[in-house]
């Protein structure tokens, strides 16, 4: 099975390998980091995954990543204003981290040090031969932030992690450690201008009893390819809510890998995918319930217009000892054009016998009775449809326990509709 026939490399594969050959040595890292980078580059050298690799079945990366932006930095990238008022902004601009923070309970360091001294080497280990997003990031990661939230600290204002580019290649990593009982809201912004290849990996440790709301807002330009990973470990009595809003990029893959390691831990994933034009956007989740009495919910809502394609793969694995697991997953899509498509693949792998696990997926059009009700009040058909489509997504946004985030995200939603609907 593993014997590879030599096939001609794609332009993207060539460019990635050439970039590694030319610049790999200059990237920060001690010998252990360099060894990890080399292993990652070797995985890339074996070829980007095609639809024959199960986890990439609906996102044929070899075909979709047809080209790769040059290994340079575009000029003129600048940090963005924070999404939420009063946020502590930690920007990676054009691949470089330079911000610092002076907030009680927060310790911030740029990642370049941790790479240089090898402390982060362990984290560059790949999850498997299909961990292509991890491989591209591990091979090239240049900077980012390591953020420690002290035990017991309740961080009053959100922390915004920005990854902003002006084209070229950007490979960034954020490592966040939330101490026992800590509370914080973290916003991850992925944005920029121009043709780019962005890889970004976020890692989060949620300490016992800690509560984290993490909001990913991806609105890359249509010329950008965006490969991202969110990895979290949730310990006992801790709660993580992850909200993902995808509204940009030519190709976007957001992987979510969460391990619920502690009893009574909670994980809630909410996703809103806004797909237009020729975009291909993929959210792939692997969630492990590893301890008893763990509770998770996943709700993904998608709007597809134009010729866009969307993907949601949701795998929930329940370990044998994770009795009393309660997991509910739903993926609902509104297809607004005949040319668009959405593929959903829910998977449950359950080894415990006393669990409640469910999943549902729907692909629908607008509910006729709702449309009639709105029109019967004088709202013309086009506006009525617009209201209902927005409502379909707003429902998920409004679940957030943060008034300002709801306002800001709904505003983004409105602007997306003005541009695309």
């Amino acid at each position, binding site marked *: 099975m593993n014997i590879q026939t030599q096939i001609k490399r794609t332009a993207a594969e060539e460019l990635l390998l050439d970039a590694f050959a030319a610049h790999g040595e200059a990237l920060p890292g001690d010998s252990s980091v360099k060894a990890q980078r080399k292993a990652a580059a070797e995985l890339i050298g074996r070829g980007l995954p095609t639809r024959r690799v199960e986890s990439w079945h609906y996102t044929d990366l070899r075909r979709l990543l047809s080209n790769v932006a040059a290994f340079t930095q575009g000029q003129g990238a600048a940090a963005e204003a924070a999404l939420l008022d009063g946020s502590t902004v930690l920007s990676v601009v054009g691949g470089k981290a330079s911000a610092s923070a002076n907030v009680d309970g927060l310790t911030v360091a740029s990642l370049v040090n941790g790479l240089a001294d090898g402390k982060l080497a362990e984290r560059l280990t790949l999850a498997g031969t299909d961990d292509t997003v991890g491989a591209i990031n591990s091979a090239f990661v240049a900077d980012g932030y390591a953020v420690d939230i002290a035990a017991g600290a309740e961080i009053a204002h959100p922390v915004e992690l920005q990854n902003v580019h002006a084209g070229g290649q950007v490979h960034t990593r954020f490592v966040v450690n939330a101490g026992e009982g800590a509370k914080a809201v973290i916003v991850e912004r992925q944005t920029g201008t121009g043709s780019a290849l962005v890889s970004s990996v976020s890692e989060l440790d949620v300490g016992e009893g800690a509560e984290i709301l993490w909001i990913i807002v991806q609105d890359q330009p249509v010329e950008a390819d965006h490969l991202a990973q969110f990895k979290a470990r949730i310990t006992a009595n801790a709660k993580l809510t992850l909200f993902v809003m995808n509204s940009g990029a030519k190709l976007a893959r957001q992987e979510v890998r969460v391990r619920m390691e502690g009893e009574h831990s909670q994980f809630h994933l909410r996703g809103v995918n806004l797909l237009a034009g020729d975009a291909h956007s993929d959210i792939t989740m692997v969630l492990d319930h590893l301890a008893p009495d763990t509770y998770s919910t996943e709700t993904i809502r998608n709007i597809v217009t134009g010729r866009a394609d969307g993907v949601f793969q949701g795998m929930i694995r329940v370990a044998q000892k994770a009795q009393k697991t309660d997991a509910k997953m739903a993926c609902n899509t509104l297809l607004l054009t005949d040319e668009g498509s959405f593929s959903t693949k829910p998977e449950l792998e359950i080894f415990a016998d006393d669990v409640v696990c469910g999943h549902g997926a729907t692909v629908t059009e607008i509910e006729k009775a709702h449309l009639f009700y709105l029109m*019967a*009040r004088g*709202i013309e058909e086009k506006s009525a449809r617009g209201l209902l489509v927005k409502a379909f997504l707003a429902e998920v946004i409004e679940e957030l326990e943060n008034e300002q985030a709801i306002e800001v995200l709904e505003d983004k939603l409105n602007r997306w509709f003005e541009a695309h609907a």
Partner: protein
Amino acid sequence: MLEIKNLHARIAEDGTEILRGVNLTVKPGEVVAIMGPNGSGKSTLSYVLSGRDDYEVTEGDILLNGESILEMDPAERASAGVFLAFQYPMEIPGVATMEFLKVAMNSQRKARGEEELKVPEFIKRVRTAAEELSMDMNMLKRPLNVGFSGGEKKRAEILQMKLLEPNLCVLDETDSGLDIDALRIVAEGVNALRSPDRAIVVITHYQRLLDYIVPDTVHVLYKGRVVKSGGKELAQELEKTGYAEIIGEAA
């Protein structure tokens, strides 16, 4: 105001004929009750008036102020002054009630060539109307009808009716699911809307609502036709004798 002439309508999906030649004239200022047993076509009539496309008109016409509305979609009919208070108002998660009210009011104003309402004026109108119906403004912060009790939904329908100021109000079984206090409040709301240039059509199963909203005329619908018409005493008579006698006469 409203003239329904020999109206025949069927369910679009399976062709079942529901209305079989309804004739009805409603004058400005008139309050009309349409009564009839289950399955007589009362609700269908309300949907056909408001333009729901699950029904097809196969014969006849509906004239509003002398003009046919058959070619108009529901939004155009609403802007022309038709309002249907639903028997089962839709819960629409994600649509904020206030936003909905504002869009509805301004859409109609726009369609009639009037200026959009400014926000303070809009809020003032909603607040006044809500007070008159003993509705808590907090309720209107919720998504449209979501989590409303049956009575709250009906009250919300009347609130919309007050705000949209239609010239033809059609109330479909507005009394269903209401307790006596809610019924009184809703009826008072409707009575407050009685005016010489507005007609109100009350569709109901029971006499009860008509104790509070006293009609000028009563029509009995049976098997898709008006089989008997009379004054308000006809409703009282029906309450005593039931529909069987009248249906017998008609058959």
